[in-house]
């Protein structure tokens, strides 16, 4: 796991705010948490200096008072860097990353529809994946949302 440990070491020496926040879950899987304020700096560094050139996916999370988003980055040698950023549910705002990864557009629209996260800087486009007439204040992947079931519900 030398490669994974080197990555952790490099990140720790570069960003003091990551102290104790990085975890090697297993071979080729690194998870870390970052505050939203530090996200951009870390994200750009991972992209430009550490060869994490593929965005595998983006995962939204509901953790009670906070919402979160995990950016799953991958490098060509199979290591994935999973960067989690959390933010309060009352004001869930993140910046778009479509400037780095155009393919992120569809993942960000998913966060908007299913978690009610506001993505700043995302251009106009079709919503995804809910229908156009879906109620504005209902976000199905939030924990307090329950499927109503049946047509007349």
């Amino acid at each position, binding site marked *: 796991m030398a490669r994974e440990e080197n990555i952790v070491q490099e990140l720790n020496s570069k960003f003091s705010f990551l102290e104790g926040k990085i975890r090697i879950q297993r071979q080729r899987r690194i998870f870390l948490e970052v505050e939203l304020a530090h996200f951009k700096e870390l994200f750009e560094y991972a992209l430009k200096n550490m060869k994490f050139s593929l965005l595998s996916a983006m995962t939204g999370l509901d953790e009670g008072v906070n919402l979160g988003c995990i950016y799953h980055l991958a490098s060509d040698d199979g290591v994935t860097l999973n960067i989690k950023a959390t933010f309060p549910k009352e004001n869930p705002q993140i910046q778009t990353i479509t400037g780095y990864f155009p*393919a992120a557009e569809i993942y960000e629209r998913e966060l908007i529809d299913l978690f009610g996260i506001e993505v700043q800087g995302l251009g106009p486009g079709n919503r995804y994946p809910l229908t156009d007439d879906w109620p504005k204040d209902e976000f199905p992947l939030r924990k307090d949302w329950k499927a109503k079931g049946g047509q007349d519900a």
Partner: protein
Amino acid sequence: MHNSEEFKIPIGPQHPSLKEPVSFSVALKGEKIMGVGIRLGYNHRGIEKACEERTYIQDIYLVERTCGICSHSHATCFAQGVEDIAGIEVPIRARYLRTLVGELERIHSHLLWLGVAGHEIGFDTLLMYSWRDREVVMDILAMLTGNRVNYGINTLGGVRRDINAKQIKEVLKAVDALEERTKYYIEIASQETTVIKRLSGVGVLSKEDAVRLGAVGPTARASGVERDIRRDDPYAAYAEIKFDVITDNHNDVYGRTVVRLKELMECYKIIRQVLSNLPEGPVSVKVPRKIPAGETLSRYEAPRGEDVHYIKANGTEKPERVKIRAPTLANIQAVKRMLEDRYLADMPIVIAAIDPCFSCTDRLISLERLESKKKEIMPWVNLHAYSIEWHRKRGVDFTKLNKKWLRYFKS
């Protein structure tokens, strides 16, 4: 088509055989595509939410139904993620059997795609024969798992059925037959001028664009991007198996055809290795109903590209969160790029070239004149016919080739 007027054409959204029905809104000037808008989500079934409300064992069968073709891909991707969180060591024989079914699934998917591609360019004899050959692998899958699709072979901690010596013999026999047929398809793809002429330079995606737009699977590999989860991030038995990652530098539909055909040859290679080195032992271990808290990212090279599952466990028997990113979602931006500034007549094959499920359902295209808002209706079957006629007028005609092939198979 009217050359001077601009049209906006909605295509879709009903494609029931796709896991994600899609609606394309195509801006057209004459026969040239000026831009493409894509709307997805018509078949959103809330599988991720449903997973949170069910047990891990129930979820295996649920995620298996994310896609009718890559069903084993999703089930394996999910199962190995949960096993990873629980710290379960899956028996080595089970890992080999997962690999076996995974490669059989790839054969069935690629042969299906070859037929669809043949149909879209008017080479229907290719459709008939590649789908006839596909039945061989479907029978093998049914023999091993009990089902033609949605195999239900996976469980947490291994697989549900073992393989016996007689079945191994049957699989090897089928692989020999399919290899013979695939060699012939490769010969056709590399020598038949009509095929080469029709597919070359269509749906171009440069290597830079493929990387920038995050394309995956054969779509990326046909643009020279050497990326394959089986080799880069090995799972199941792939770390112990020798195979080549097939790439091609044509960057077009022709390249995508070559990559898939050559990948079929790799599938046969992998299956032979799996069966000749199949370790003895149990095929599953018991996994507790409650999975300890933890999270992981599971990756799998599905026939169409990288499949990603993120799983978060909270110590109960139901997951806290399951996120599925199927490969088609990663290739959507690439399709937009491939269609821009190309001819409408190439649209069916360009779309088919990233996704093998572009089937024969009745889809309507309505042509809307931008100035007058007057609508004309063009069913999918007419667009298909238009595409074939358009190329026939320009010298790409499959009529003779269809007849020649029929003669070959009769003899």
